[in-house]
Every structure is written in structure tokens, then in C-alpha cells.
């Protein structure tokens, strides 16, 4: 008997009587409704050690240029809607500023959803020293239940919630911003009109 058959067989012998699958959607529908989702999102971002810049989408180019003026290599995929996995991931190692746009933001925990089609490549958002994520005010949802109800997590093969600059508290519980990934994160919150 191979390992697969052996483990599946052991589970069939051992498993407890069937417990019904809870109806998660109905249960979370009874949770208290969240209001002021945009304000909650912005406040929560600030608490994560990230910076919030608010403005209009029509001024986006200026907002992005002003976020990290006069820096090293900038990589912007803010227009990205497709995956380009073919580029060497190591080629982004010297990225100073990486700019992308989230497809949604989550008010309760400031997470911004970045599917691969919005990142174009997997590595730059983790390798860059500084990251800018554009979040459309109209795309902010209350909580993770609402987020996952609208997401197809498998569609691009890769996606990540980002909720702040990389950080660690592994040395005596002292919070240090900038662990292995970006040392700073800026969320640019824009309204929907182009």
C-alpha cells in the first residue's frame, strides 16, 4: 500500500462521526454591519506603520511622483492587467520603488488584495525597498467575509493581501519596520473618476 492509500485508509478508520458543514455565509450575514469603511481603512493603514496619501485619480501621476521623489529604480505596473511570469524574478533585486494597484481594500484590517495580474511579476512587490499601492475608495469592503465573497483567489495562480511594510518583533518583542521585504509602504487612496 502506498502512502496515499495508507493515510486515506487510516483517516477512514479513525475519523469521528460526520459533523455538518456550517453555513458560513448565513452566519456572517448576522454579524453587525460596519459603517465608515473608507475612514476605517485609512485609519487602520496608518496604524500599520504605512503612510496614506489621499487624492483624485485624475492627479494620480503627480501623487505617485511626489510619494518618493528623486529615488533609484522605479518599477510601475499600475496599469497592469496581465501576468508576465517569464521575466527573471532576480531582475527586480535593485528596485527602489514599486508601484501597483490593488483590486480591493479591506477596512477591518487594512489589507490590500494584489492578484498576480495586478503585480505582473511575483517578486518586485517583495524585493523593492519601497512600495506604493493604489487603492480605489470605491473598492473598499468592510471585512474579509465580503472580500472573499467577491474574489476568485485561484484565477491568476497567485495573489497576496498586503497590510503594511514588512516587520518583525522577533528581538525582545521590539517592533522593527523593514524586515526582509519593503521598509516602507504608501497607500494612495483615490476616488473613482479617471
Amino acid at each position, binding site marked *: 500500500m502506498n502512502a496515499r492509500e495508507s493515510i486515506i485508509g487510516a483517516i477512514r478508520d479513525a475519523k*469521528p462521526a460526520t459533523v455538518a458543514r456550517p453555513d458560513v455565509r448565513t452566519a456572517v450575514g448576522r454579524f*453587525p454591519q460596519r459603517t465608515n469603511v473608507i475612514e476605517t481603512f485609512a485609519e487602520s493603514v496608518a496604524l500599520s506603520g504605512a503612510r496614506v496619501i489621499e487624492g483624485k485619480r485624475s492627479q494620480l501621476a503627480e501623487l505617485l511622483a511626489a510619494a518618493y521623489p528623486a529615488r533609484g529604480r522605479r518599477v510601475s505596473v499600475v496599469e497592469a492587467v496581465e501576468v508576465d511570469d517569464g521575466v527573471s*524574478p532576480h531582475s527586480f533585486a535593485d528596485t527602489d520603488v514599486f508601484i501597483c494597484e490593488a483590486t480591493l481594500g479591506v477596512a477591518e484590517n487594512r489589507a490590500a488584495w494584489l492578484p498576480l495580474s495586478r503585480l505582473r511579476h511575483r517578486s518586485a512587490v517583495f524585493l523593492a525597498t519601497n512600495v506604493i499601492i493604489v487603492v480605489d475608495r470605491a473598492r473598499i469592503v468592510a471585512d474579509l467575509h465580503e472580500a*472573499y465573497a467577491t474574489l476568485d483567489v*485561484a484565477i491568476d495562480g497567485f495573489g497576496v493581501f498586503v*497590510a503594511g511594510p514588512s516587520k*518583525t518583533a522577533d528581538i525582545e518583542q521590539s517592533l522593527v519596520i523593514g524586515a526582509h*521585504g519593503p521598509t516602507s509602504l504608501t497607500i494612495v487612496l483615490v476616488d473613482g473618476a479617471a
Partner: protein
Amino acid sequence: MTPSRGLPVIEPVVDHAAAAARFNANPDRVTWHDAALWFVREKRDQAVTEVAEWEELRGLASSIKEHTLSRLDEYLLMFESAATTNGAVVHWARDAEEHNRIVYGILESHGVSRLVKSKSMLTEECGLNPYLEARGIAVVDTDLGERIVQMRREHPSHIVMPAIHLKKEEIAETFAAQLGTEPGVSDPITLVAAARGHLRERFLDAQAALTGVNFAIAETGGVVVCTNEGNADLGVALAPIHIASMGIEKMIPGTAELAVFLRLLARSGTGQRITVYTTHVHRPRAGQELHIVLVDNGRTTQLGRDGFWRSLKCIRCGACMNTCPVYRRSGGHSYGSTVPGPIGSVLTPGIDLEKYASLPFASTLCGSCTAVCPVKIDLDAQLYRWRQIAVDAGYVSGKKRGAAVVAAKILARPRLFALIGRATRVALRILPRSLVAAVAAPWSRDRDVPSPASQTFRAWYKANRASRRAGKRQ
């Protein structure tokens, strides 16, 4: 299942009390350790109060896990099928040895000699690092806390904060010796910057990346990894091979369920609303290989134990350790187990009861672990169950056994109980305190023996309640 990095370590039978006594030899350190963990527990409380529906979330999470475990065979096969369709290679491992052999086989067939790892308690449990190192593969743990203990050739003392037992001056010494930082500089910002530079080179240079898995989604065939440092992501985004190792209990049905667990995990563990990175991997990058290793290593045995299968609901947040008065004052290493604290003390005796029989006794049964557990594992009840099994199996010291036998005899005989109570009260009144303390040692080492009450409960009951009840009956 003893993990080892070629360390001197671990006595054949773990004696938690003796190991805790060694940790307690330095009272200042105990106080400091206790406070560090309690700080995290308080952050957890703060985060929990923000969520009005917290108790409903815990209830949901518990029943989702119970449901999934009750149909684990079906969900694993569903996951395998979806993951394979996505382009992953799914492997099955009955035990630690088979897991290590599979991982080494993948690495060997690609000529890999440099592996970066993100945090994975499963690979600690399997002893993967020494297995690979003995076969010529350089393994670098990339979670900062894990890297620190790896450099010091120690084990993690906590599943979320592996280096919580170390002071920054000790870490500074290690870094000065191995990373060339300035001796005596122990400021965390400087130390983290040094580790960042050191590990960035390893990430860029790695030929393969191994990650743990926080959740595996059966319906979509994807794995979810949660980190704050971005270390798992740098490994996976750069290396041409990604190996994800997971215990079979990490399975959940779908993404509606994932939302429930992600809301609970970081809040319970560190008091964060969510970890900085929550990464969902469904397909490898172009040209990359994705291997997922599903590991049993005793989990199906635990699944078959009536009183213990619910311990497999655990999502490894660490909240039960942070709140445990015994863990906080004995340190993670005193458990001699990959997973320490209350959850470790119900999981690990299931692997080897003789070796770990002392762990269920490393508890006051106060129930604080059960109160904070985000998936409502009845930890204190399971600890109590293991105690009974350990006693029946004869793994408990004669002294403890003898005391229990004597107590049972006395408590079963009301007259004898009253007589001994009377004698004890007299003795407490007339004997010198120093003698009383000596008799009560070691209990009395940090406590005063109380003075006897002027009236016993029995006497009070007889005077007040017994006559009233008798009156009612008439």
C-alpha cells in the same frame, strides 16, 4: 519525533518540572519572560475587543474544523485533485522519515545544495534540517527568530516567536560572532538591518524554497502562508522550486471558511488584525516547480482518539502559550517538544506517552488556554484526560501516585477526614512555623502556610444549614 540539529539535547524522558526548575534558577529572567509573553496576551485582548462578533467567529471556526476533520479523507482527495490540475505535484508522507526522504529526493534530483526555509513547525517536528545537512544541503531558516536560534544551534522556544527566550544582548553576541556586527551593539533596529542584509543574499542565491502552510483550500487546491517579515514570499518568488510542507490537519473547505480563520489567527497570536502578508499560491510561476507534501506523522492516530481528536483543530496561533502561567514561567524549552505549552502538552504525549508523560502535568488546569483558543479546543479537559492515561500506564512517579492513593482513601472516609483535619489544625496552631514550612516543602518555598480557620466548613454547615434543611423537611 525529537527534532535535532545535532544538538546535545534532549533527555530520553522529558521531565518538565526539572527543566522548569533549571529555568527558574534565574528569577529575573523568569520575571522578564513572563512579562514579555503577557504583553502579547494583552495585545491579543485589545485586538479581540475590536471585534463584536468574536465569540460567534470562534464557534464557527470550531465547527468548520470539526466538519473538515470528520471528512478529512474527502477533502484531502479534493485538494489533491484541484492542486494537481493547477500544476502542483502532491506528495504523501506517512511519517517524518518519509517526509524528509521526499523533500531530499526533490532537491537531489535538481542538484540543489542551497535551500531557504520559512517558518515551518512541521519540518522542526520532522527533524528536516539535520537530515538535509547530513546529505550536504545548506539549509537557511529565514524567519528572523528561527534564524537566530539556528545560528545559536538551539530550538525555537515558541511556535510564533521562536526566539522569545533570548535577550537582545545574547542575540547581539551571536550576530557579532557570526555576522560581524559591532560587539556590544544590541539595538534591535541595527540587528534587524544586519540580518536583512545577510538573508537578502541567501534569498537571491537560493536554488529552492521550502515554506510551511497555514491553510490549504480543498476546493481550489491552493495553499495560504501568513508572515510579517515577507521571508516566505522572497523565497518563493525567487527560487525555481517551491516545496510546501503541511500537516494534513491544515485543510479547510473553501474561501468563505478561510475568511473566518484569517480574522482569528493574527488577532489571537500577536494582537495584529492580520499578518502583513497573506499569500495565496495556486500555481507555480512559469518555469517553477511547486511541490506540496501532505504529512500524517501521528495525526491520523490522534484523529482516532475519542478524547483528543479535537486537538487537531489547532491553527498554531500560540495564544495558549502566551496566556499559560506555567509556560510563561518555565519557558518553551522545558517541554522538550517542538510544540510547547498547553497545545503541545496535548499533542506530543500522543506521539510518545512514555517520553512526554510529564507534559500534561505542566498545567494548573486554570483553563485560560481554553478561554483564549480561537478554535475552542478544550485544552484543560484534554490535559486532565492525558493525566489519567499517564497514571494508568504507570508513567507517574511513585511519590505523586502514593499521595493520590492516600488522598483517595481519606476523602472516601468522612470520619477519617474529620479526624485528620482536626489533628492538622491543632498541629498548625502549636508547631513552630519553620517546622510547618519544612513539612509543606517545596510548596511552602514561595508561600506562607495559612493559619487554620477558627471554624471548619463542616462545623459551620452543621450550625447553619443542616438544622434549616431538617426544619424544612418536617
